[in-house]
């Protein structure tokens, strides 16, 4: 064989395979991009959440964004009427840490001029042990990726091929979208598990796997000061640029707060809230709401082992449903703080932080006394973990 023939076959085989892979990705559209402008709010994609969201933020015409973890990704509806004229996108990332949240914020402010940012905070976002996860490094959120490398990562990679085939499978089966305008479809994620294993089992599995044995999200060493500094930078930027910022602490079920106390991180959790209230003192225009205040919603009854009913406000102790998310929106997006007949959430500031924390300590004690069976179950799980 002549050398030039060898070279031609080598290059043609290579180029042909590359073209085939890129074409597959363009056809299957696994990240839900390149949809027509009128339909840009129905992004329907099947994987690579971070990759997809980074593209959507860049390509969509949004002016309001929700930032946070899987809790706000599942619980906060960006299409709710309360957003009014604003075109909102849920940019929350499941399993993220605050460094990722900050990078998402930077991506947004680099490319858009947002009018409103709603920042849903979780204690676990501030754990030093929680590293960057998922496909973050493959996405455009990671600023080390150039446009060229982003193109190839999105269209010519093992991930893009896998996700293209999955997208094709989903669309052939006619399954509902996993994400809608950035919000994760909670029903698709949890309903099947609840139906198969029962709500009670799901609740305690979550407590065991996501809290008691999850030292990455809830380490004994407390929260990261450097991540608090990043939060300060974020708040300062919004203040300087006149971007309206609303911060809230995502609700978790009271049972989870009880578990915090039993595994010894409850006081760290309260110190973290105190740090947040210091920020509100420097930037009074930025409200900070706390929805872990032992309201009737987060103290919702946990169904017994024999019951087949599911909870009204929570999927399990960690993730709240859109029904509760809508109440949160009602509280933070309306001028009068929402027309709530039942108290839900409190605004934290320097003046009330001590009384709020004292109240929460007291409420947790009361909750423990009232729910002795749950407390014993949690203690048994902690013992089992050791």
């Amino acid at each position, binding site marked *: 064989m002549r*050398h030039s023939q060898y*070279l031609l076959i080598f290059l043609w085989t290579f180029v042909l395979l590359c073209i085939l892979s890129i074409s597959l990705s363009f056809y299957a559209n696994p990240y839900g991009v390149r949809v027509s402008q009128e339909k840009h709010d129905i992004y329907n994609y099947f994987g690579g959440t971070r990759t997809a969201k980074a593209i959507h933020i860049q390509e969509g015409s949004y002016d309001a964004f929700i930032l946070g973890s899987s809790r706000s990704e599942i619980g906060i509806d960006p299409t709710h009427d309360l957003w009014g004229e604003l075109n909102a996108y849920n940019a929350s990332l499941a399993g993220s840490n605050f460094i990722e949240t900050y990078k998402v914020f930077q991506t947004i402010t680099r490319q858009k001029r947002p009018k409103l940012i709603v920042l849903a905070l979780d204690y676990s976002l501030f754990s030093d042990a929680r590293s960057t996860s998922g496909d973050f490094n493959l996405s455009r959120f990671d600023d080390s990726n150039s446009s060229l490398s982003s193109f190839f990562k999105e269209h010519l990679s093992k991930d893009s091929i896998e996700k293209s085939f999955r997208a094709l499978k989903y669309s052939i089966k006619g399954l509902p979208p996993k994400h809608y305008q950035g919000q994760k479809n909670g029903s698709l994620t949890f309903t099947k598990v609840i139906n198969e294993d029962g709500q009670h089992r799901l609740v305690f599995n979550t407590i065991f796997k996501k809290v008691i044995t999850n030292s990455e999200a809830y380490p004994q060493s407390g929260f990261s000061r450097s991540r608090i500094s990043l939060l300060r930078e974020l708040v300062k930027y919004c203040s300087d640029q006149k971007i309206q910022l609303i911060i809230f602490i995502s609700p978790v079920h009271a049972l989870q707060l009880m578990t915090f106390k039993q595994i010894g991180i409850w006081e760290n959790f309260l110190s973290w809230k105190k740090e947040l209230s210091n920020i509100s003192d420097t930037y009074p225009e930025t409200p900070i709401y706390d929805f872990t205040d032992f309201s009737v919603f987060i103290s919702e009854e946990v169904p017994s082992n024999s019951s087949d009913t599911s909870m009204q406000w929570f999927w399990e102790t960690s993730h709240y449903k859109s029904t509760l998310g809508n109440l949160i929106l009602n509280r933070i997006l309306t001028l009068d703080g929402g027309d709530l007949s039942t108290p839900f959430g409190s605004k934290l500031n320097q003046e009330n932080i001590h009384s709020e924390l004292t109240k929460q300590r007291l409420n947790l004690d009361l909750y423990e006394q009232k729910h002795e069976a749950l407390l014993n179950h949690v203690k048994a799980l902690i013992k089992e973990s050791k």
Partner: protein
Amino acid sequence: MLFNSYEFIFAFLPVSVLIFILCQCSGNRRLTSSWLVFCSLFFYAWWNSSYLPLILLSIFINFNLARSMRLLNKMKRLRSSKLVLIAGISLNLLLLGYFKYADFFIGNMRFIVNIEHTSLNIILPLAISFFTFQQITYLVDTYKKQVQPHGLLDYMLFVTFFPQLIAGPIVHHKEMMPQFSSPLFLTPNTLNICKGLSIFSLGLFKKVIIADHFALLANPVFDQAVISPLPNAVVAWTGAISYTLQLYFDFSGYSDMAIGLALIFGITLPFNFNSPYKAASIIEFWRRWHMTLSRFLKEYIYIPLGGNRKGYFRRLINVVITMLLGGLWHGAGWTYVLWGLMHGFYLVINHLWRSLIPPTPYFLRRVSSFLGQALTFIAIIFAWVVFRSENLQAASNIITHMIKVSPDQFTQPLQNAPSLLAGLLLIWLAPNSNEIFSKKRVPRPLNTNFQWLPNLSSAILFSLLSFTAILYLARAQEFLYFQF
């Protein structure tokens, strides 16, 4: 810029090769060399442009020092020439010392004299160990009148030629300069391009598919060893063997890519690995592992120290000193020092064994070779654990578990056993790149079928290797030898 990045493969490489071929066709040597120098500097600056002046300054100073030496040698002023050489070597070592060892020195001084001093937090300029040593050899050989005079452009190309700039192979001016002035440098050669692309593809595959896979097994073990004791010997051995495989496939993959790239530009670089884990002794291992570094250590440290000319005992001390400096060359840390010392003592034991034990009878040679290979491999694994560990405590954590032989240490089944086994079979049985791409016969049990020939199946096979590696580039990791 990394060889295993999209920017390099889809933009930098095609553009640089196409324009290089056009320059070759023009028949203008200056233009062709200038283009390669420009590409190399662009390639270097992509990482951090602020260090570009540093490498340029180093090149200009060393070139002019060499020129001065040549003049002084001509005027028979050997004393002055030696002074220039000493100044040149000192300058290079000072530069390397500041960027690579200053923080290490400060940290240790702080520990010894217990004074408060903040570290300098110096960012190590990419490839500084490689281009500094390359230039020291040039100065030494100029002093010895072993260098033919040539222009600045050729010298710049010798130092910066991008395929070897970042992590070797460490080239010698004697093997590079004649190639730049050869008529073949100006002749487009399709065979070189075919062969170069195929070697590059094999290297890319070794790095992205094999080495990065073993990195996923090794990293968690070494990370865990820093914070807590490992659970058992199985975990410790998995981490140690995985790293042993990762380092070989990573660095030999990188070397293959460098050799392949250079060949595309018509330049032949020396092979750097010759199946080192097949070595039946530590002496043999160092003739097969990072061969261009071994050559440098031998010619520019071991022999000037006296080599084997000053008696047996002094020879052994020279071996230990050379390996200790070899360890320090890899990095400023006690783990590297200990790794160098370990290899120094391994070599001493090997030399003592050879001189004290009579040669093995012919009929026992196969058995002795097998035992030697096994023992050498185990000794190397222990040394790599020290080399890779974050600190000495982490190394001791892993080694303690590796040498625990109680049954409770082996209750956990060996996970990833198939991939570890496949990796071991590859390093012990498969031919290496040198054997595949040279005309030498491949030793049994895998025969000549593995030799590269420019035919249809080779073209498709190596194209598939490249494509598969490209698919995994998104999660590719940096080359291990970049940090040195």
